[in-house]
């Protein structure tokens, strides 16, 4: 690992981040994630042929085709923009690296005829800012020498259906399971199922929600890296789908396409749990801006998902 600035890889610029944010917003709004589409197609096959669930899934898939063909948003709630820049510690990061994101978001929402859904202040000034800014940005430092920009358009319905619960450690694994199932029972109908359910367990009150949100970036159904977490994900998914809430909450076998779990260390007194609901139009893209292999700026559109 280089000891001084001279040895750090360069190549991450504010302009590259802004350009990636613009392109990602435009693409996410009108295009269903390929892994989400594949999971919905599999879910369609699992519903009874004449069922309401199958009819709903047919429409969700047809909707994705119209969005792509006509370049119109697959959901009218084109969301708030969350942009997370994940950078390796061996990379030199300019302090202004996120400064172009708001301008890129404003241009993308105007050019794409997307919906402006951001208010100036939640409590004190509920006036629409008119350009869907500010975006909600974060910088995340990780090992390595690459950089990836994660962009997510998050709708209000699915975020409103999310929650953080601070359990007592004695509640244990069963308590976590019930917290997830309670949230699904109470709120799934508002979050546009079939869902992708991000679950965070651990860290602190503020960080556990971030764990749940980051879990939504994982390709649908790709298991957690640890065997224990992956097994719990499978158990939670089975329990969620056993509720029978189904597509659009109108009944059926598939209430969720996946449960993605991220865990972390925590205080001896704590068992924080967060559930971040992802809807059936789950819109995100992860764009590699600097190669994690070589530390060189990635080719245009490289690594986009």
């Amino acid at each position, binding site marked *: 690992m280089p000891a001084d600035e001279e040895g750090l890889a360069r190549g991450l610029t504010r302009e590259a981040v802004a350009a990636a944010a613009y392109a990602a917003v435009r693409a996410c709004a009108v295009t269903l994630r390929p892994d989400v589409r594949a999971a919905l197609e599999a879910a369609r096959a699992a519903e009874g042929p004449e*069922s309401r669930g199958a009819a709903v899934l047919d429409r969700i898939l047809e909707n994705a085709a*119209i969005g792509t063909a006509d370049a119109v948003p*697959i959901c009218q709630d084109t969301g708030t923009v969350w942009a997370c820049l994940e950078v390796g510690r061996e990379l030199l990061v300019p302090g202004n690296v996120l400064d172009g994101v708001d301008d890129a978001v404003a241009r993308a929402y105007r050019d794409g005829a997307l919906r402006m859904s951001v208010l100036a202040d939640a409590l004190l000034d509920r006036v629409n800012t008119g350009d869907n800014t500010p975006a909600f940005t974060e910088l995340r430092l990780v090992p390595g020498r690459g950089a990836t920009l994660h962009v997510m358009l998050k709708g209000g319905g699915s975020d409103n259906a999310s929650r953080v619960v601070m359990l007592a450690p004695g509640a244990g694994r069963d308590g976590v399971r019930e917290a997830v199932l309670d949230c699904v029972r109470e709120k799934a109908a*508002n979050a546009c199922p079939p869902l992708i359910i991000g679950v965070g367990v651990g860290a602190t009150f503020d960080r556990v929600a971030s764990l749940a949100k980051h879990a939504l970036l994982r390709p649908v159904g790709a298991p957690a890296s640890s065997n224990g977490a992956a097994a719990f994900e499978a158990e939670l998914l089975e329990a969620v789908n056993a509720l029978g809430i189904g597509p659009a909450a109108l009944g059926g076998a598939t209430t969720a396409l996946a449960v993605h779990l991220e865990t972390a260390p925590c205080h001896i007194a704590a068992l924080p749990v967060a559930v971040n609901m992802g809807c059936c139009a789950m819109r995100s893209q992860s764009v590699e801006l600097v190669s994690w292999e070589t530390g060189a700026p990635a080719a245009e559109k490289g690594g986009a998902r």
Partner: protein
Amino acid sequence: MSGLTQGATGAQDAGMRYAAGAEHAIETPAAADATRDAGAEAGRRPARLTLPLSREDLAALRAGDEVLLSGPVYTMRDAGHERALAALDADGALPFGLDGATLFYAGPTPAAAGRPLGSVGPTTASRMDFATPQLMEAGIVATIGKGKRSAAVAEACRATGGVYLCAVGGIAALLATHVTESELVAWEDLGTEALRRLELADFPVFVAIDVTGTDLYRQVEAGVRP
């Protein structure tokens, strides 16, 4: 997209694809009446109804029915409900001739692809629960949204002979192909939350709460399988 012309062609294609892919969705009213008793059974044929809904239309609907709506609805969301209640308090009547109207809880995207709206779909209805009973008593006969409602809304449906209809969330590009006109009525300063009159054409919804107060979402929760 190379331009508006191509977009408009795409829109027509999309509508046709949808109609062709869901042949069970197109039906004559007479045949729909004959199958209405099928209730929550899967594959039942949807009735086609013309807005504004009559008391007879409303009384015939049962939770779980699928209905294709044609005619005018009015978009109203969170901020609009506060203004509608304020107008009701001030004047003792619904503003903008909304008596007898159907409200659609929706904030559309701007015009695109040769259509009056790019995308439009239901928002979470429970956020409007604080105002719905009062608005129904004042003359709103139906609301369109997504998700569960409060017991007070179910009671308002029963007491006023109105209904709550749900549209599928996450299919807004498809639903926009069933909207033929969009006209600003009021509250332009609210942006996407403005009051708009939309003209629907075979817009697909399900009856979520009927005039008896029966609730489709609660039926699903209780294991009454569709």
